[in-house]
């Protein structure tokens, strides 16, 4: 079973960490990451930029608003990771999606740190094919 683990915390406080505090937390986290990644169970891990860097597209009115999606009635139902030239291109992608699936909103939040994690099954079996390595050796 695959899960998305969504991380919540007090943003002002996390942004207020000193470089040293931040590095210490990241070092502690990476020990946990390494263990689960080695077991092949940790997939991409992402640290998002602060909500102040976010832009939200409200689909029905095609309204672009600075800041995160702030309504509380809707639930987070999914997300995409995209690699585009700039915010405008990201918004074009979101608008296309919105035409296919109107209603609700897309929040575009830049990614600060992207850790690919252990390969997914598809990539893993491809790797086995190329490497001719015995299964379970990775």
């Amino acid at each position, binding site marked *: 079973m695959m899960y998305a683990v969504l991380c919540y915390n007090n943003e002002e*406080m996390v942004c*207020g960490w000193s470089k040293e505090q931040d590095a210490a937390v990241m070092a502690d986290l990476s020990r946990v990451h390494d263990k689960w990644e080695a077991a092949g169970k940790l997939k991409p891990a992402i640290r998002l*930029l602060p909500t*102040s*860097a976010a*832009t939200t597209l409200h689909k029905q009115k095609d309204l672009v608003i600075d800041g995160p999606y702030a309504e509380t009635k809707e639930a987070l139902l999914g997300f995409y990771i995209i690699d585009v030239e700039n*915010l405008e291109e990201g918004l074009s992608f979101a608008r296309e999606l919105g035409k296919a699936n109107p209603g609700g909103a897309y929040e575009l939040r*830049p990614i*600060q740190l992207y850790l690919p994690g252990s390969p997914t099954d598809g990539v893993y079996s491809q790797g086995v094919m190329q490497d001719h390595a015995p299964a379970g050796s990775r």
Partner: protein
Amino acid sequence: MTDQVWIENALTTSRPQAVAALLRYFRDLDAAEEAYQEACLRALRNWTINGPPRDPTAWLIMVGRNAALDAVRKRSKQAPMPDEAQVSDLEDVETPMVERLDHSQYRDDVLRLMFICCHPDLPATQQIALALRIVSGLTVKQIARAFLVGEAAMEQRITRAKAKVADAGVAFETPGAVERSERLAAVMQMVYLVFNEGYSAGPKDDARADLADEAIRLGRLLLRMFQTEPEVMGLLALMLLQHSRSEARFDAQGETVLLEDQDRSLWRGMLIQEGLALIDKALRHKKTGVYLVQAAIAAMHARAKRFEDTDWASIDALYATLERLQPSPVVTLNRAVAVSKTRGPQAALDMIEPLAERLSAYFHFHGARGWLLLLLDRRREARESFDRAIGLANTAAEAAHIRMHIDRLIAESEKSKGA
């Protein structure tokens, strides 16, 4: 992260909003600060025992206000307010409190608090000192160390600034749109001054360098309050992009490393990502401003993988925009550096020669002029400019950098004599 560190972080983070809200209740800076101090003391006791509250800022505001009101009641022998141990257990007491302090009220509170520090009667040094003390909550000792003055002198400087501000009176009514934007402009300038104090610090001057981090923290706070202001995005982006190079700006000997010689792998990618994202957002508003344009210039450097990849034509165009928005000989001087790359050193020199009189006491003018003359192989005049520059250097690192040019000139002229 230990509880103690968590609590300290929470207190630092909550401070601007909490002091600002308390200032609205008490309409007196000292009273607001005292109430906040008292709330912090109680937080240290209470949070270690009962765990942190859901909204530390709201907790501090309520407890600070109650503590101050209690002090008044005690003097008039009335029944005290409920104590905070009870308060923090009652989530339903916190919730309406948070709702009452809605976003726009917080925003005007914090803006007012910051604006007080930017009073036009205060010289820039006092504005910065007052903001660091009141908004950021740095101790007088920390501020004194950053400004290389004694603690007593700094205490006096802050007390004097506070007195001047109190005399001037503070407008407590909700500001109108025009006044809000004037306040915001003054506050942005003050935040950038704080940043520049940190940015201009030498390599081993950690106390002063920390001011850059503090300014970024204030910039983030402002942006949270004014999420749709492109200039606030520009200001934060500018600071993030400049700060991203902090570890590449000095070599092991503490000497300045020019942009072209910096090891770009030392630039902090996370800060760059955030800066670039903010510029993208701001550009959507199609409204230029001085911070946004400067941020866009910094972004041109951040985007170049190597110095040779720098898009000087765009930088030239951005400086031309900046000259229009904010005409200044210093901006023209900076533009000339870009022009020297696109149209050559002679064009750049022609551009800055008319500035000679106005910038005669400006270190960077003589440094840049000397460098352009050197490129044109006018060594004697270059040497004269470098000599002028070294006499005007503000930091040891600046002087050392010019010294390097002069030494090279001397070495080359001796070599040619020997040959």
